[in-house]
């Protein structure tokens, strides 16, 4: 079965639901709603045997079919993002102009390095336009995400996804930032924050360092909210955010729930853990 999370259906409805559940999410939800963009699925494909070979060998699909981002499309999207953010965020003086005049080639490079090293990509952008690193990471995810999602949709993995045992995305190679416990089985499905691909990973194994010593693994919840967990590993001191869909009583679009629950990332950092994804959205 494919576990690609197609974010298109129900995106705006999910924002409404999350706004009701998380009052703080309001302005960010509106911004995400205005930035939503769905690119056409590119006309590329990969044979089932090639996909299965890649999965068995632990190779990511973008090694076989590299992502091609049209720099004109990217520039247009970037302009829209900058305009929307400028309307809603108190940016430092001149930051909007610096963001708007970012070199297209530089932006493309940042988008291409984003899955493998989001910390570096966000740090480069933050330094270039003098904004905070977490805002830079957010902007890059919004800019690059639709291109990766369209590519993942085209390469959509079938049943072979169940052979994938790695702690990183089988399509783009990003380390997961969030996942969910399935409503029916309780299995932990990790979902790529870049391209939306989902894959199963054992609950009692750290996806980042593969540690399976149960004395080092655990999770915590914030009081009164058992739906969202922070799974952590004390061997590598990294964390993964997990939505328990059994508690929540419904499936959720994780890319939105992640932004609606930034307070959990803060709590995790406060407890001394780092995001295993290296995607730092809380400064």
């Amino acid at each position, binding site marked *: 079965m494919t576990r690609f999370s197609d974010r298109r259906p129900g995106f705006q409805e999910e924002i409404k639901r999350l706004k009701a559940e998380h009052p703080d999410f309001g302005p960010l939800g509106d911004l995400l709603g205005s930035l939503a963009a769905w690119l056409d699925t590119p006309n590329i494909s990969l044979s089932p045997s090639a996909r299965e070979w890649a999965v068995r060998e632990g190779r990511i699909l973008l090694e076989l079919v590299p992502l091609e981002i049209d720099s004109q499309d990217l520039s247009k999207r970037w302009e829209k993002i900058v305009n929307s953010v400028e309307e809603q965020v108190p940016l430092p003086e001149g930051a909007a102009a610096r963001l708007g005049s970012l070199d297209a080639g530089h932006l493309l490079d940042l988008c291409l390095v984003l899955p493998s090293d989001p910390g570096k990509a966000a740090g480069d952008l933050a330094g270039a336009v003098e904004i905070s690193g*977490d805002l830079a990471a957010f902007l890059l995810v919004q800019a690059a995400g639709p291109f990766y999602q369209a590519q993942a949709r085209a390469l959509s993995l079938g049943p072979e996804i169940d052979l994938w045992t790695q702690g990183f995305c089988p399509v783009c190679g990003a380390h997961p930032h969030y996942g969910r416990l399935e409503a029916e089985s*309780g299995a932990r499905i990790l979902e790529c924050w870049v391209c939306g691909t989902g894959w199963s990973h054992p609950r009692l194994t750290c996806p980042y360092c593969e540690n399976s010593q149960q004395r080092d693994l655990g*999770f915590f919840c*914030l009081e009164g909210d058992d739906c969202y967990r922070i799974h952590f590993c004390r061997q590598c001191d990294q964390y993964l955010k997990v939505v328990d869909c059994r508690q929540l009583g419904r499936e959720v679009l994780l890319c939105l729930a992640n932004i609606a629950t930034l307070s959990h990332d803060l709590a995790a950092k406060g407890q001394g853990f780092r995001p295993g994804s290296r995607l730092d959205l*809380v400064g």
Partner: protein
Amino acid sequence: MSLSRRDFLKRTGLAATAATLIQLGGDPRLTAASETLKIHYAREISTICAYCSGGCGLIAHVRGGEIVNLEGDPDHPINQGALCSKGMSLLNLRYVVDRQGNLKANPNRLQTVRYRAPGSSEWEDKSWDWALDRIADLVKETRDATFEQVDGNGVTVNRTRAIGHLGSAAIDNEENYLMVKMQRALGVLYLDHHARL
């Protein structure tokens, strides 16, 4: 664990931030840092259901040294997260519900070896070391007293017919192998099982 608002702000460095993503969202940092923010830690420990020979995998949630939840292990090849009605009620071995509907430790759960001496009406608490030594002594004594090297026809049999062994439905292949090996080495003939599946 509980964090005060002051601790939380200090740890997250809120005071030093400016124009961050968080500020877009009406500052959930402040919400999270409400005076009584509490964090509940738990560990997940995998284990095996004790009821039958199916050997279904379980995940036990442990908080402060107490089991607070049991669920099927979705990564276990046998049950893939599912549990039967008995397995689902396994937590009740540890807890019972009182008349007010509160969970409390099951007072009937045995936590030590209980021994009643022959002819006695009193139960005594014993240690596992004592119990294992007692079993070993009785096995040795019985086997020595009843061991037959040859039968009435002079055929070598190396057996005792005074000991029987009953297996458990909840032990696995490897444990069964070792148990049978040991019983055969002792010369025990009567091996049986109380499997319910």
